[in-house]
């Protein structure tokens, strides 16, 4: 997949770039409104990661421009502005999703994947990971063709790990992904452990190999290596 990162903060841009450049993903970047404008005019992207506050202009203007030239690129707004009005304005201008800074890169990638899925496959996308098959439309999981019953949160968690396969996911990121901003009411993120244990058990019970690897209590990695 090909992404465009429009973000003026260099270190953030690099981190995103580094995280997304896996498995044949290509990232292009722009640090100013002007650069973004030029790239948008020339190339097509699967998803554009758009920061709203740019040194020489307003990110929303790029959205308007995109709409004007009739491009169907997916757009994920990444902004520190989290007012409802901004969100509504961004989404109504054609953005697909809105992610508030600060975010976890794994969350960013999950959102990007979701946008691409909706755009390219009408949301109808099936992820395969060895013997696991995840149908994101029907919200169904199959192991070796046999369905595995997962709760909504368990399904979301598995999908999150599969999307970010081979990446270490911090407990914090996983918790925020499932419970949102209110997750902090637990004094530690350890309760994600119970959830992962459940998913793991349900998968292994149906004959699946255990792909969850714990990383020294910081997080987990979904990988078969």
């Amino acid at each position, binding site marked *: 997949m090909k992404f465009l990162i429009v973000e003026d903060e260099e270190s953030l841009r690099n*981190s995103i770039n580094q995280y997304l450049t896996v498995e044949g993903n290509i990232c292009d970047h722009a640090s100013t409104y002007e650069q973004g404008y030029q790239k948008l005019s020339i190339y097509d992207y699967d998803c554009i990661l758009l920061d709203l506050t740019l040194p020489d202009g307003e990110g929303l203007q790029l959205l308007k421009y995109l709409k004007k030239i009739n491009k169907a690129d997916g757009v994920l707004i990444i902004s520190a502005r989290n007012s409802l009005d901004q969100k509504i304005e961004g989404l109504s201008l054609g953005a697909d999703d809105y992610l508030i800074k600060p975010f976890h890169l794994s969350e960013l990638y999950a959102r990007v994947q979701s946008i691409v899925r909706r755009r390219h496959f009408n949301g109808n996308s099936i992820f395969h990971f060895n013997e696991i098959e995840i149908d994101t439309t029907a919200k169904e999981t199959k192991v070796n063709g046999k369905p595995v019953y997962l709760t909504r949160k368990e399904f979301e968690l598995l999908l999150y790990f599969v999307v970010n396969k081979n990446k270490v996911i911090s407990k914090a990121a996983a918790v925020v992904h499932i419970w949102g901003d209110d997750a902090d009411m637990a*004094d530690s993120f350890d*309760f994600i452990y119970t959830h992962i244990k459940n998913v793991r058990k349900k998968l292994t019970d149906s004959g699946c190999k255990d792909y969850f690897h714990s990383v020294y209590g910081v997080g987990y990695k979904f990988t078969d290596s």
Partner: protein
Amino acid sequence: MKLFSSYNRILAIITFTGLIIIGFLFYKTLGQYINKQIDDHLYEEVLEVQDFAHVKNILPSPDGFDDVIVDYKKIHGLSDKNRFFADTTFYNPKKKHDESARYLKTELILNGQPYEVIIMASKFEWQEQIKSIILIILLPVIVLLLILWLVNRILIKRMWQPFRQLLINIKAFNINQEKVFEPVQTNIEEFRELNNTVLEVSLKVKSDYKEIKLFTENASHEMMTPLAVINSKLDTMLQSNTLDKEESEILDDLYKATSKLTKLNQSLLLLVKIDNNQLQDKEEIDLKALVNEKISYFQELIQKRELQVKTNISPFSVFANRSLIEILINNLFSNAIRHNNDGGSILITITNDNLIFSNTSSHTALHPQKIFERFYKDNASDGTGLGLAILKQVCLKQNYVLSYSYEKEYHQFIINFKSSDNKIR
């Protein structure tokens, strides 16, 4: 005591005592004057008695004269003191009661013999006259005073009217609201000065508050980008396969710290937003459904602490902004879960326009006012100290009454929805 009644009280005391003293003095002087008149009259009578005895050589009969009673007593010789006036009472056989009277005791030589003569005149008529005079003078004075007092009262009330209005306006002034302080129109210099001062202060307070709010908002925003950088760098570090246990623990701590900072920032921004009334769109919200939804949403958190959640909810809807109500419920839940002890319980009740969250806790009663202050938290708490402040602010903006109580080892947070007036504390 009000300034007005205090003033009136002093005035009344002075007037009353003044009136009594003046009345007393007046009465005394008048009495003395009248005594002098009677004494003159009595003296004239004595002269007449003397003349009578001289001319006719007989003593006049005791009641031979109008209005006076004359009494004689033979004595052996004249003493030095030959004239003596005094008050007495006598029995008036005609009116059949005692009357006060004035008498003159003197010694005279009548028909060559020394006599003691007592001439007595009734003071009754005179006293009646004094009464009339005093009434005639005092009554108008009292009436005049009453009128003055009344006029004074009305006048002062009228004159203090701008002051009262000023007070009302000051009370109505709310730093959070767009409405500025309303000046009062008055001609009285002092009030006008007060008015202008309050107006100036209110404008200053308002602009300062705005500035602080703006500062908070900007500062929070500006912190978001560096936080995003830190978070993304941490995520990148996490991907390196060379992390050992110690480094992982450091990373975990860093995640926790950034997450806390993020939450703090978001809470501050939320407070600013609530203050600015940015969440306005209202809709009908089924509170029962929302609470049940949240129970399943926070299920894992509840299970982890092994908490018992009991509900007693009658169907109830509120007309409000959904985000705000969700924040409200989330914060109540957050509070009840976070500050509970493992294996404790949470009781959620909705009845009679009240939403009550009760929870057990290892803490005893908390300070009912302080807990709603920004950044107030006990040492054991890992939160931002803004949760309850946000709760309070939401309630304040929606005109709900929020209160806290501690009953039977349960901490209770009560939100009363049906209170459209400003009873918020």
